[in-house]
């Protein structure tokens, strides 16, 4: 007994020592720091070759493009002010502010030209080169038919950047927040060569932070305030520590042990638990999950009533609450909420006013439509496969959907097939499925990034749903309405309603990420592109 007491006392002292050490550490560095969690490692810091949100977040922390999101507001960053748009929306002229790289060099228009050309050049192997499609000659360059120097971007002088498009792109400005459009210092990139963006020492930043202690593959890193940043006076957190944690329970435990200040992507029961905590934050993601029905393989899905019946048999609210356990939003449309807004109106919410009934839970009506649909097609109730990938939430969703369909739709039998993500992808693209549970994230915050998917000849229209009126509306939005935001908004809204009423795709939910964030952190904004903006954020 005595021994045990000594042990406890010893442990307490040791712990106190550790705590004291921690306290003195952060005090000695004389600054404010936080530790944020990521669910996976940073795979690269090269803006041209990055493909994931984790690298994306670190790039946004350490770099600045022409624009920067501060919450929902798109604000000029390296661009001094809004650009001059001429030639019917085809030429953008940006004036650049006096900004510096972390090595003291000025950020010039030439850096943008170099960075853009580097991304579209096939040799760079960028997976996002296609984003430049619409910039003059971009498609020909990525196809290897023209030299990168012919790209429609030009440094008029050190501080003037001129961009020429092939046709007006209404959402062009929002695309500029993507790291693929960031400037890159030619001198530095060429000196680093192949190693550019593979470790801390091969990085140059022009953003609020500099990345330190990152070896290119590690689970930890450090972002320290960049004193040369043009807006450094509004950067209040001195150090952001990055820590990779993959398991939700571990993340929760670490958060509660005060080892993390921001814990993200918490799922399952841990999400349900986190939701009850005062530090909970729900972060709306710019993507939806939906069900695609293969009309080519199973002609029964060509019948609108069958598709509508499937949609009506899903109780989205219960499914989110009980199966996903998080705060995701029932999706009324393929386009998610909070993505595309105009004059304070939300595109998805506006659309739902007219087409909301198509995704309401109504088993009686579902049954009726199902029976009618079967009669119209002259078929008996089918046995079909539901393809899904092997993440926990996808699997559980499939289990729920299987049961929901079999209960509500008489005779319908569903088998689940679980495969790794890439297999699912390749099967969906090759049409080897009956129904597939899939999702889409927007590259840029505009409804077109979703609506484009379901036009007849789009390569990602896995279900091969086709509607002539819909195709015409989408085309109209890109041509006649391209320079008229109001007309374009209305046209897209009409298209969205057709898609939803017809259930060309069956929307399920919009993911809301469950996050825990210390109360001491304030003014930290979350962008429509799914990343934080640490500028202006403070910590007590």
């Amino acid at each position, binding site marked *: 007994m005595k021994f045990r007491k000594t042990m406890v006392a010893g*442990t307490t002292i040791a*712990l106190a020592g550790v705590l004291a050490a921690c306290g003195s550490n952060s005090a000695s560095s004389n600054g404010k720091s936080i530790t944020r969690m990521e669910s996976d490692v940073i*795979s*690269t810091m*090269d803006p041209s*070759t*990055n*493909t*994931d949100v984790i690298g994306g977040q670190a790039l946004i922390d350490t770099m600045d493009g022409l624009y920067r999101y501060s919450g929902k507001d798109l604000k000029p960053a390296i661009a001094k002010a809004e650009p001059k748009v001429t030639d019917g929306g085809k030429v953008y002229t940006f004036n650049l502010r006096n900004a510096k790289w972390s090595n003291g060099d000025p950020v010039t228009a030439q850096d943008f030209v170099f960075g853009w050309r580097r991304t579209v050049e*096939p*040799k760079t*192997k960028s*997976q*996002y*080169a*296609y984003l430049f499609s619409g910039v003059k000659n971009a498609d020909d360059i*990525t*196809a*290897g038919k023209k030299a990168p120097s012919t790209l429609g971007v030009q440094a008029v002088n050190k501080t003037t950047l001129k961009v020429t498009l092939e046709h007006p792109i209404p959402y062009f400005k929002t695309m500029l927040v993507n790291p693929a459009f960031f400037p890159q210092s030619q001198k530095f990139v060429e000196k680093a060569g*192949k*190693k*550019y*963006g*593979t470790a801390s020492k091969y990085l140059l930043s022009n953003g609020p932070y500099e990345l330190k202690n990152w*070896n*290119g*593959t*590690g*689970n*930890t890193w450090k972002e320290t305030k960049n004193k040369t940043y043009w807006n450094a006076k509004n950067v209040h957190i001195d150090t952001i520590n990055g*820590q*990779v*944690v*993959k*398991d939700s*329970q*571990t993340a929760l*435990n*670490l958060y*509660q*042990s005060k*080892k993390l200040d921001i814990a993200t992507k918490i799922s399952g029961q841990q999400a349900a638990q986190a939701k009850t905590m005062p530090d909970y934050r729900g972060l709306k993601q710019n993507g939806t999950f939906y069900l695609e029905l293969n009309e080519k393989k199973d002609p029964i899905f060509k019948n609108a009533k069958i598709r509508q019946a499937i949609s009506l048999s899903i109780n989205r609210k219960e499914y989110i609450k009980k199966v996903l356990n998080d705060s995701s939003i029932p999706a009324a449309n393929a386009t998610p909420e909070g993505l595309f807004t105009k004059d304070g109106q939300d595109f998805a919410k506006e659309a739902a006013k007219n087409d909301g009934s198509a995704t309401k839970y109504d088993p009686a009506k579902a049954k009726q439509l199902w029976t009618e649909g079967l009669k119209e097609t002259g078929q008996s109730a089918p046995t079909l496969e539901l393809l899904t990938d092997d993440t926990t939430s996808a699997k559980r969703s499939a289990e729920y959907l299987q049961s929901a369909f079999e209960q509500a739709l008489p005779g319908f039998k569903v088998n689940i097939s679980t495969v*790794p*993500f*890439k*297999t699912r*992808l*390749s*099967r969906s693209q090759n049409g080897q499925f009956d129904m597939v549970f899939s999702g889409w994230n927007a*590259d840029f915050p505009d409804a077109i990034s979703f609506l484009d998917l379901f036009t007849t000849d789009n*390569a*990602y229209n896995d279900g091969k749903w086709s509607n002539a009126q819909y195709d015409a509306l989408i085309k109209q939005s890109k041509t006649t309405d391209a320079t008229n935001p109001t007309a374009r908004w209305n046209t897209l809204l009409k298209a969205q309603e057709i898609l939803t009423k017809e259930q060309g795709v069956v929307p399920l939910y919009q993911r809301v990420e469950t996050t825990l964030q210390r109360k001491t952190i304030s003014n930290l904004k979350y962008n429509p592109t799914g990343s934080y903006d640490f500028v202006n954020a403070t910590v007590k």
Partner: protein
Amino acid sequence: MAKYILKRIGFLLLTLFLVASITFFLMKLLPGTPFNNPKIPADQLVILKKQYGLDKPVWMQYITYMVGIAHGDFGMSYQFPGQTVSGLIASRIGPSLQIGAQAMVVGTLAGIVLGAIAAIRKNTWVDATATIFAILGRSIPNFVFAALLQLFAYKTGAFPVALWGGFSYSILPTIALAIAPLAQTARFMRTEMVDVLSSDYIELARSKGESRWQVVAKHALRNSMIPIVTIIGPMAVDLMVGSLVVENIFAIPGIGEQFVKSITTNDYPVIMGLTILYSAMLTVIILIVDILYGFIDPRIRLSGEAN
């Protein structure tokens, strides 16, 4: 003996060559592309594949790859643009090796002791306790055990909940990993020791007046450890699999987790690199075991050389 070892090393290289070849062709059957972005347009995909040399016939890719590894070049990762496979592995293998080695040593030693004690005290409560303990160790999947250990750390604060830092961070992961080899060794040890203790030469040694502990130390232990040597290889493989789970739960920057990710994302060069590395480690362990086997049991050495 030297000739025998040389011959075995030759076979080892041949084995690795075959493993690499088989894996290469099987891997090429994986559906999908190594590219993460599902939105790449079809024409872009063609260009990307060309840039990576994936447009060439598989046998040509194979020859290129094999020539590469003959020169020690394992290629570049797809998932980590700009990182060489060897660099990627080197930067993450440290923690995996550390907890793996610690678990192996702790597990085997503790298992030998536990098994020996159980055998010596056969059919007593000591034996029963040791047996049940060993079986429990085999009965709880390591992802459950690791989660329980973490819960323990979280509730008591005695150990770090997760993450990777000094030695104290490696204690719980080591225990989580060590439990399987511990249990397996203990069971084998007990079985063998019971056999050995009832054999004639032990009776002889006893009748010569040696004490029980002398007999155990001088004769029984050595002879009982022979079969344990044979299970070290498979146990090492189990550890590789186990490390994946443990690294995931304790957020350790190791290589195990990366392996599964590389397979599911079609990161071909990393799959190859890790497969070859694991195979090399395994074959080397088996080689060492076979040589050790000869030292521990002279009869085997004779037949080994007769080969």
